[in-house]
């Protein structure tokens, strides 16, 4: 009997995987609409060193509550969606002038430097995060982006790449509202 059950294992595993696939196809699945516990909380306390070779300073809690609305973006050179997001993010920063701070997640400094030299560096500050900061920020993967108001409070959290629709629909209106 147990032998018979063993033969049912493959179909059982497939059924579970197929269930996930079906869920993944649901037309009302909106990967952008993610509840996050971080919104409306002050930013976590952190102090990240600069990435060597980039020529931009590191990032710490104190840089975030200086009266300006800023964006904080978690990225890594090994992350494919980050590459996809990069041109949109750069164009957005150029258009709006919002200061963009980067947190370079689990990356080799030389890889990060090469990546930014190749694609251009839109970040004013970049902190190197061996992993701890991501946990404190409630980040589960890269890329993820936060909008921080002038008081150092998180007002928006987006998981996944910032594609033009998200920037137009969510980020732009919020940015205008926060800037008054």
């Amino acid at each position, binding site marked *: 009997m147990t032998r018979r059950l063993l*033969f049912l294992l*493959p*179909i059982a595993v497939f059924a579970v995987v197929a269930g*996930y696939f079906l869920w*993944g196809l649901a037309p009302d699945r909106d*990967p952008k609409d993610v509840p996050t516990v971080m919104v409306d909380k002050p930013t976590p306390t952190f102090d990240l060193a600069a990435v060597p070779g980039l020529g931009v300073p590191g990032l710490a809690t104190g840089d975030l509550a200086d009266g300006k609305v800023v964006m904080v973006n978690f990225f890594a050179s090994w992350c494919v969606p980050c590459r996809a997001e990069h041109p949109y993010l750069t164009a957005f920063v150029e258009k709006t002038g919002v200061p963009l701070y980067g947190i370079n997640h689990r990356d080799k400094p030389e890889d990060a*430097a*090469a990546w930014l030299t*190749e694609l251009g560096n839109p970040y004013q500050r970049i902190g190197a995060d061996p992993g701890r900061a991501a946990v404190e920020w409630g980040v589960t*993967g890269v890329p993820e982006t936060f909008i921080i108001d002038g008081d150092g409070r998180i007002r928006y959290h987006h998981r996944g790449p910032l594609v033009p629709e998200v920037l137009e629909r969510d980020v732009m209106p919020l940015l205008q509202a926060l800037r008054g």
Partner: protein
Amino acid sequence: MIIELGHFALILALAAAVLQGSLPMIGAARGDAAWMGLARPAAVVQLFLVVFAFCALTHAYVTSDFSVANVVQNSHSAKPMLYKITGVWGNHEGSMMLWILILALFGSAVAVFGGNLPPSLRARVLGVQAWIGIGFMAFTLFTSNPFLRVFPAPLDGEDLNPLLQDPGLAFHPPMLYAGYVGFSMAFSFAIAALIEGKVDAAWARWVRPWTLLAWAFLTGGIALGSWWAYYELGWGGWWFWDPVENVSFMPWLLGTALLHSAIVVEKRNALKTWTILLAILTFSLSLIGTFIVRSGVITSVHAFATDPERGFFILILLAIAIGGSLILFAVRAPALKAGGLFAPISREGGMVINNLFLSAACAAVFLGTLYPLFLEAVDGSKVSVGAPFFNATFVPLMVPLVFLMAIGPMLPWKRADLAGALARLKLAALAALFIAGLTWYLQAGGPILAVAAMGLAAWLFAGALVEWSDRVKLFRVAPGESWRRARNLPRSAHGMTLAHAGLAVVMAGIIGSSAWKSEVVTNLKPGETVEVAGYSLLFEGVGKLNGPNYTAERARFTVFRDGEEIALMFPEKRVYPVTAMPTTEAAIRTTLFSDLYVVIGEADGQGGWTVRVYHEPLVPWIWLGCLSMVIGGLTSLSDRRLRIGAPHRQHAAKPTSHPATA
């Protein structure tokens, strides 16, 4: 007109497949020879119709018929002829046509060359092939029809994604699909065997050539794909653990396991249910790959235009094909008779270990690829699983596998003497130590793990050669006698040596290019020089260039080594005006032991340019090693045993006397 005829031919091919998938199956169940016999002509007719449909679509591309929507979306009148043709499969709809064409080719190959198959098995194999064909032709006709017209026809097309306008891409998809679809043969044989209720040595001997052929194609396809990524994407990397790469790698891992377990079924009549399961799973992973790439459930940089509706259709196909076959497996496989017994330390035992590691590696890749979807479904968070995960899970599984890979072929069937096998590998151990020491010396230390890994690659390479030279008694008898022995050795033995040694070469290439890659990114003005790994590159400036459907900025570098001019290199940056997409064309100079790789980036507006220079030691070995693996596979395929179908006539004759058990 031709395009409508092509459309009609595809509909007729679907009808032929329905016929092929129904009457012969019923005939096989009833023992009706005439109905079973229908499968062969139906498969050939289906092939002719599919070829006609494919040619009709190709004709529309070649003549730039912009009244066809698919041509409008993926072609342009100024595109070079080669890319007009490759553009046929450079898009979703056309690539489905290629998929169907290859499926029909394999199906009719069984019909034409399967003369020595028992009629009921042949009818069922062809029937299952037809079911797969029905699924994909219906999918194409109902959701992805490439034969639709647009009215009014636009003056010109929207052009093909410039990244795909590359000679490497002419051959990458056909080879990859030949691999994916080729595994459908093993699948069809497995389903047919489950329906028949019988798996024997003869069955394995029929499955193995198809699996080998598919495996060789898939190996070549993956290698071409990574080579293309290497020179075309301009990142200096050749593998990114992107979902689209992973879905081609998973069937390769399980297909490799299948290749080995089928030998055990053939020689020892053991591991039968496991081999059947592997055959089902290998093709299932090919299907899942198609689903992942085309449905958009997982983010990837180079996905096809995705569409949830299409995804839903493929998911239904998956549920029927994979779900149905696994249910059949659960019901029928327990009744299959277990075969020969063997001691844990034996050739069979080695194959089991091989299968365990390959399956575990495949599971690791599967988990990493689908984890973002699983996690999002469970708690809604979106993640990206990148190279760190795969390096941490996949590599540790490969290390013991490669270590044991040198030992396995030394073990005899049934029961083996491990000490004896290890004693024969003394030379390989010496080679490993020597290469590790040499690497240590040449690289002045370097990452200790990389040095050890080079030793491991040498161990495998030398192990494969030792096994081969033992068999031909190299240096122990007169050279003439060794030559005679080598000629009498089964071709599959040569094939194995080539494939195993090829993997060692691939491994050395991977290690060299990851551990000792040097990379310089800098801003250069004309007349300035950049140094990398002993080379000096003098940047002489950038000129404009006009291609047929692009404009380019071409930089000129003079390469010096020890003060002597050795080469000129011309990296380009192209812009394709129709799609407004830029591409980088890297300049690569190879010595076969290393590549020098130059890419130009953006101009800084003050006369300087971003320039990236990579020096990648041993990187060409990755593709040379793959080539050796493919040649090994094809050599093995040409083995008399597989060509003839069965070495002993009495073996081949036996199964036909069995009535079909249902």
